[in-house]
């Protein structure tokens, strides 16, 4: 038993970009544990994707094809991948930590009596065995995890943790694997994907964004962030809880379930910096964080930080900007 198997994600013939980051993590894991790297794609009629997979440097590629995995269901994917993992018997099965992976990978791991080491940000090999690092308490702490059982070790990789451009090109044979799946095994009936609201605010075009988080406490207080935004000539955005509460419209939400932005300047006001928020804004050219907790994870990505009470700092900042601009 050996090898690192990376399970790539596609939907309707389109790769999920995080797949390549997971493959980069798998490539590093394979190199450091001295094992062959393999990758699999699940679907039906995924010829174009097979072609792309064949251009990566792998010991082998697999296309897990069956009419019953054309559309994603946890039951279908788990049945298919359980058979592939049994056949290959890899030491490691690596996934991108996507919503889809969250939906089926724990189920798959359970079938093997394993736990999924989820949302991993890095790893190092210690005594021949990898130690995986993941975050606790919404990014406030890091923790080292290790597989203690024998059998395949299931790991999912956090968005942005590994660089897809580190992937080596090559020429790989892609083998078709046809799992046995019975329609009766699939209990969920998935519907079409849909979007809710027409987006009228395109935050991705804004050069400056002032974004508010739960530190603002009440809807009535959003005004002070609005004034800062006005002084800076910025768009107003928010973390998810602010939009969930209806304090700002959903279309102003930044993060994994909202918009992805990369303005010249992003000012995070009372935002803790959970990974789901960070993925939406960490590409910003400059980030300012204002937070009363000096250990808030938002400071991890900030270029400029002010530790303090936003109710004092933000009005002072608005005033200073107005003075500087002479308005």
């Amino acid at each position, binding site marked *: 038993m050996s090898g690192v198997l990376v399970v790539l994600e596609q939907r309707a013939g389109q790769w999920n970009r995080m797949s390549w980051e997971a493959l980069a993590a798998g490539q590093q894991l394979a190199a450091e544990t001295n094992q062959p790297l393999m990758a699999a794609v699940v679907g039906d009629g995924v010829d174009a994707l097979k072609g792309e997979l064949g251009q990566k440097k792998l010991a082998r590629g697999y296309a897990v094809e069956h009419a019953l995995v054309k559309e994603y269901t946890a039951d279908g994917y788990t049945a298919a991948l359980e058979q592939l993992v049994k056949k290959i018997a890899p030491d490691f099965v690596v996934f991108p930590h996507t919503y889809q992976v969250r939906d089926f990978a724990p189920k798959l791991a359970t079938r093997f009596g394993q736990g999924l080491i989820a949302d991993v940000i890095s790893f190092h090999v210690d005594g021949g065995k990898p130690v995986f690092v993941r975050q606790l*308490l919404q990014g406030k702490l890091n923790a080292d995890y290790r597989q203690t059982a024998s059998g395949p070790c299931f790991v999912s990789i956090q968005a942005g943790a590994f660089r897809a451009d580190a992937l080596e090109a090559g020429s790989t044979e892609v083998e078709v694997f046809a799992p046995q799946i019975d329609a009766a095994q699939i209990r969920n009936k998935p519907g079409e*994907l849909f979007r809710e609201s027409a987006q009228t605010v395109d935050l991705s075009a804004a050069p400056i964004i002032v974004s508010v988080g739960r530190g603002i406490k009440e809807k009535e207080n959003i005004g002070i962030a609005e004034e800062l935004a006005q002084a800076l000539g910025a768009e107003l955005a928010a973390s998810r809880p602010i939009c969930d509460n209806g304090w700002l419209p959903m279309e102003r939400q930044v993060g994994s379930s909202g918009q992805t932005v990369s303005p010249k300047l992003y000012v995070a006001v009372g935002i803790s910096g959970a990974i789901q928020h960070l993925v939406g804004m960490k590409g910003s050219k400059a980030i300012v964080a204002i937070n009363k907790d000096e250990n808030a994870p938002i400071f*991890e990505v900030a270029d400029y930080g002010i530790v303090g009470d936003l109710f004092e700092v933000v009005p002072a900042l608005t005033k200073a900007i107005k003075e500087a601009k002479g308005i």
Partner: protein
Amino acid sequence: MKIIVAIKQVPSRDANVKVNAAGKWIEEQDLNYEINEPDAYALEEALQLKEKHGGEVVALCAGPDRVSQTIREALAKGADRAIHIEADDLNALDTLGVAKMLAAAVKAENADLILTGLQSDDLGLGQTGVVMAELLGIPHGTIIMQVEKSDGGIRVKRELEDGWFQHVEMPLPALLTIQSGISKLRYATLMGIKKAKTKEVKRIAASELGGLAEKAVSLDKVYMPHKQKQTQMIGGSPAEAAKTLVEKLKFEVRVI
């Protein structure tokens, strides 16, 4: 509908956490705890489903003595009864161990629906619910925003990435992991708080549930993250800090 809601007690969001002396977990003394945020929404969803369709809501919580407080709050909000799995040290278990215990405790209940939060604020594993569903042999849905009864089962709205959603139908019994912020949470009423005292809390020792099996995954060490980015921390009074920042925005970021 008989609904079980798994609720976990976690350190409160703005707790100032410190790594403990052993470097294996956080310092628990002087820490405030609260219900895991998505679990509060799972409970709310369960209570609303009961109001619509009738039935019973049972709160399920594994943890040490201190979780009694969270259980009482769930009862005060309207859960009919609770199951407390007495586990002094949850860290002695991995996900599979916790999920096995939770699944064993509810198996005999034969509930129609089991709700969990989509992820815990402390461990952030995001998988206990899915593992429970697999152990119980029932279908599941994750990151659920809405639940409706349909012919022969339920129809749920699942959140996908980048603002996409999907409806999924599944038969009952089923397990759903609930997303935060999907409704408005109710407060416990005075009457509710009074009534909670008379409601049943069944206590089961963790050892009775065979959850103390060997771990598949272990947490070896907890530590503060090493800073990767050079952050210029700006000190001084709010006015001074504002002034310094404006200089930076003018001459370094060039947006003023």
